[in-house]
């Protein structure tokens, strides 16, 4: 894995008395204290974060938490007061904070593209002229530019609209133009500043799905700012939560939901449906945590209703439920199978918690076994495990 963007102790302060503000930041002063004493606005303090190539790294927080401020440091739309922001450029890392204007310009033209909340389209230009804007600035020859623009138009499904003016389009379509403009530069790093916040919920969901589809094909590195945790959990491979200009927690979506670092994060996730994030892996008990019953038998649940007999390679050779022999069936068939008290479902660790719960419901609350790719038994999920994960207790 290569690092695409790395923030190292980034402080961003707006206003005149920066030196004194930085001093206060070093002593751990809050934004309000800094503002009251120096009149300077703390944008972000001590932010360190590494974004790997191909990741979608989401910066999350309430408005004013410094998430956009940090994002905009990557292409120096915001000037960093202290610290460095390293951006991958070909075979080297460039410090955006100290690099000269020519380097910065080439970085902006070829390495880092941006999508804006209010779209940032130019209303006197047609859709295709807007998409070609970045290429025009970079001096890409006309013929090549037209071809790349045509490709992008097809990619975002706007071929029919290429000659329209940006303001004649709906919000959703305008943001597609914004996306296409960013993709057209073929920059490997994409900055997205609340790109879908200005859209209505249906269009937002649709564009999120489209972004994920495009990302599966294009494999960009995306830094995405959002104030919507559902959105963050849906599209993020890592999530960074910010509060008052400081990073509170960085982790995978499951980390954030299962191990919130403090009350601020806990408040954030309070209204999130854990079923949309958690997988069997997050809630299972490992094989060694389960009760063993001799002769290769393992109890799958604490209530001791169901047990599997394993051979030396951990393959299941027999199953028993409430004292009677039972079948073990894959979870992927759960939708089709009738409800049946004599079967026990198994799932792979990547299966969503929702499917696991459905399997439990269909098998009259039997535990669900977990197999790895070689069909070896690795652990199980009892009803107790599911409840505690859902209730977060």
């Amino acid at each position: 894995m290569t690092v695409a963007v790395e923030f190292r102790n980034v402080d961003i302060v707006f206003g005149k008395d920066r030196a004194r503000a930085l001093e206060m930041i070093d002593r751990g002063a809050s934004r309000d204290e800094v503002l009251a004493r120096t009149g300077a606005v703390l944008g972000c303090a001590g932010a360190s974060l590494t974004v790997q190539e191909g990741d979608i790294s989401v910066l999350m927080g309430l408005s004013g938490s410094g998430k956009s401020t940090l994002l905009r440091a990557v292409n120096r739309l915001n000037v960093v007061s202290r610290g460095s922001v390293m951006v991958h450029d070909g075979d080297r890392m460039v410090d955006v904070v100290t690099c000269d204007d020519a380097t910065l310009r080439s970085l902006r033209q070829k390495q880092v593209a941006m999508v804006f909340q209010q779209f940032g389209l130019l209303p006197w230009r047609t859709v295709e002229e807007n998409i070609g804007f970045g290429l025009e600035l970079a001096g890409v020859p006309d013929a090549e530019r037209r071809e790349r623009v045509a490709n992008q138009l097809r990619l975002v499904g706007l071929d029919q609209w290429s000659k329209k003016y940006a303001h004649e389009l709906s919000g959703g379509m305008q943001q597609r133009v914004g996306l296409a403009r960013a993709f057209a530069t073929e920059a490997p790093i994409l900055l997205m500043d609340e790109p879908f916040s200005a859209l209505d919920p249906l269009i937002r969901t649709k564009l999120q799905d489209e972004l994920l589809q495009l990302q599966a094909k294009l494999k960009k590195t995306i830094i995405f700012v959002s104030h919507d945790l559902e959105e963050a959990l849906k599209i993020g491979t890592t999530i960074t939560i910010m509060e008052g200009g400081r990073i509170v927690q960085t982790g995978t979506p499951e980390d954030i939901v299962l191990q919130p670092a403090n009350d601020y994060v806990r408040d954030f996730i309070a209204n999130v449906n854990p079923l949309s994030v958690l997988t069997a892996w997050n809630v299972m008990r490992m094989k060694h945590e389960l009760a063993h019953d001799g002769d290769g038998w393992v109890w799958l649940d604490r209530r001791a209703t169901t047990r599997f007999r394993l051979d030396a390679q951990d393959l299941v050779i027999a199953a028993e439920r409430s004292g009677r022999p039972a079948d073990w069936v894959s979870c992927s068939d759960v939708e089709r199978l009738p409800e049946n008290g004599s079967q026990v479902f198994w799932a792979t660790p990547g299966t969503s918690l929702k499917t696991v719960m459905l399997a439990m419901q269909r098998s009259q609350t039997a535990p669900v076994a977990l197999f790895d790719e070689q069909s070896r038994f690795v652990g199980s999920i009892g009803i107790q495990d599911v409840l505690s994960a859902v209730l977060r207790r």
Partner: protein
Amino acid sequence: MDPVSALIASFKIPVGQWGRSFFTFLTTNFEWFFDAIADGVTWVLQSLIDLLLWLPPVVVVLLIAALAWWLQRSWKLAVAVAIGLAFIINQGLWKDTVETLVLVVGATAASMAIGVPIGIWAAHNERGYRILQPVLDLMQTMPTFVYLIPVLILFGLGIAPGLIVTVIFASPAPIRLTYLGITSVPKPMLEAGEAFGATKRQLLWKVELPAAMPTIMAGLTQCIMLSLSMVVIAALIGANGLGKPVVRALNSVNIPLGLEAGLAIVIIAIILDRMSRVRTGASR
């Protein structure tokens, strides 16, 4: 008089004397410079006037009507322009009208050529604008007759001083409106330009100027109207045109002549205003 006021009045600061010394200095040392400007301006404007007067008036009317159609894509306007100009020919004011048109168009072109770059510069230079602002206020509020005198001394009589006085009076409009247009370009547009790696020059030509264009065009329209309002005053320092019959009418209390010339000025004003408006609609 009370003693304090008497004390204040006892020594008059010779502002007027200083002004005169300054202009005497300019005329004695830089006469060649001001003469050259006056000759150049006169030559350009007079050639244009000669050309337009050499053409048959009907041809000129049709050309202007065609231009009106080309600018606004409106048959109605083209016909109205032709009728208005025909009325002027009918009133026997064609020569004066041509002279006025050339003066107004020339003054507007000069004002825009000076005003737009200054406006752009001021928009990028906050301190510069703060210095510029009182100068613009002075140019617009100082009674025109006051600077007629030095302009007359420096440039003599004729069409050149008329143009210069008009430019002094009219150019603050394009400066202010260009400044306004460029400083009010929405931030997201500027950031889009910066984020995709625009140079300062690209940002100006591809983002700021197109975004400010409607406001700059409003400046153009204003500039034309301000120039036209100077026609009578320009006539006082020897510029030919529709101002001449107005001044003559005033001096001889000649109501018919004043009415005819005044109507002609109004017609020219309406024609120029309608022609220079920014067309609204999908295709900007």
